């Protein structure tokens, strides 16, 4: 529909934006590979920051400015911090943990490799002759804000209800249950009492 302008472009004469996109893409993909293969759990979380930041730069190169800053704010700013909190609250080991990968690693590698080959083949075959026109910016903050609050208001409000529900759900799930807490306290008191008795018997 918009892509009559396919004349002078080609694979063999990449533009500057394409070269930068390719370089940032290589960095992003490498960081993603380290994220899923690193034996050190905290390092995996920190390489995830590099991956998400690289994706934000790709958004900027695609002229989707608002999405890029949202990506930096929400993913790099909060999701990674939540993941690090989770790693520390589950007492993740600081050094390398040899059992980070499961035993079905080779099956996973086969599935992922097959999926990658199929997807890349289909995508390249389908969009071989399509070009994105980046001359006019498509995602400036003003545009996206106007569209979001003019045409997408109802989903936006539904999303705020969903976020509230998720917040309440997370609080309910992570709150310590009163009755089990009471039981475990009673159990520990009983154990203390029996240990005390044993020590008295020893002495």
């Amino acid at each position, binding site marked *: 529909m*918009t*892509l009559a302008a396919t004349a002078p472009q080609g*694979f063999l004469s990449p*533009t500057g*934006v*394409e070269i930068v996109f*390719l370089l940032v*893409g290589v960095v*992003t*993909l490498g960081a*993603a590979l380290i*994220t*899923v293969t690193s034996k050190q759990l905290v390092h995996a979380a920190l390489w995830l920051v590099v*991956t998400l930041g690289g*994706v934000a730069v790709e*958004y900027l190169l*695609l002229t*989707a400015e*608002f*999405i890029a800053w949202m*990506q930096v704010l*929400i993913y790099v700013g909060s*999701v990674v911090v939540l993941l690090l909190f*989770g790693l520390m609250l*589950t007492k993740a080991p600081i050094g390398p943990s040899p059992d*980070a*990968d*499961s035993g*079905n*690693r080779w099956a*996973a590698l086969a*599935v*992922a490799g097959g*999926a*990658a080959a199929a*997807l*890349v083949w289909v995508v390249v075959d389908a*969009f071989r002759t*399509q*070009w*994105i026109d*980046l001359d006019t910016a*498509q995602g400036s903050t003003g*545009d*996206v804000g106007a*569209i*979001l609050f003019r045409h*997408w208001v109802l*989903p936006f409000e539904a*999303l705020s209800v*969903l*976020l509230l529900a*998720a917040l309440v759900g*997370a609080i309910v*799930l*992570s709150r310590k249950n009163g009755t089990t*807490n009471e039981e*475990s306290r009673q159990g*520990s008191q009983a*154990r203390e009492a029996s240990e005390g008795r044993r020590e008295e018997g020893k002495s």
Partner: protein
Amino acid sequence: MHLAYPAVLAALLFCVGLYGVLARRNAILVLMSVELMLNAVNLNLVAFDVWLRDSLHAGQALTLFTIAIAAAEIGIGLAIVLMVYRNRGTSDVDRLRDTAEGPDDDTDDADDTDEAAAAAKKAEATA
């Protein structure tokens, strides 16, 4: 820009995330790989939105919604992982086999000892 660049990058990122989901053992690393897959989908949405010059910017609006839903998902997911860790003393998805059928019946014993260890640990912590 050629459309194949963002599309191929998104496909490869998705497959890296797929490998992570299937191959990782720690539940939090599985959640990180899910984030990678969601990012691949977001990149596709933005690229096709810019390509189509959609007047409603449906792709970018959907990307914002996906980012918000991913944040909600990571919050709930971490709460569940922390609860499992508190009850079982592990966040290893290979050892949460209560609903699994199979020939390996010894996993039940392992789970019992895990639960006992976790209960002892909790008792120590509250004492």
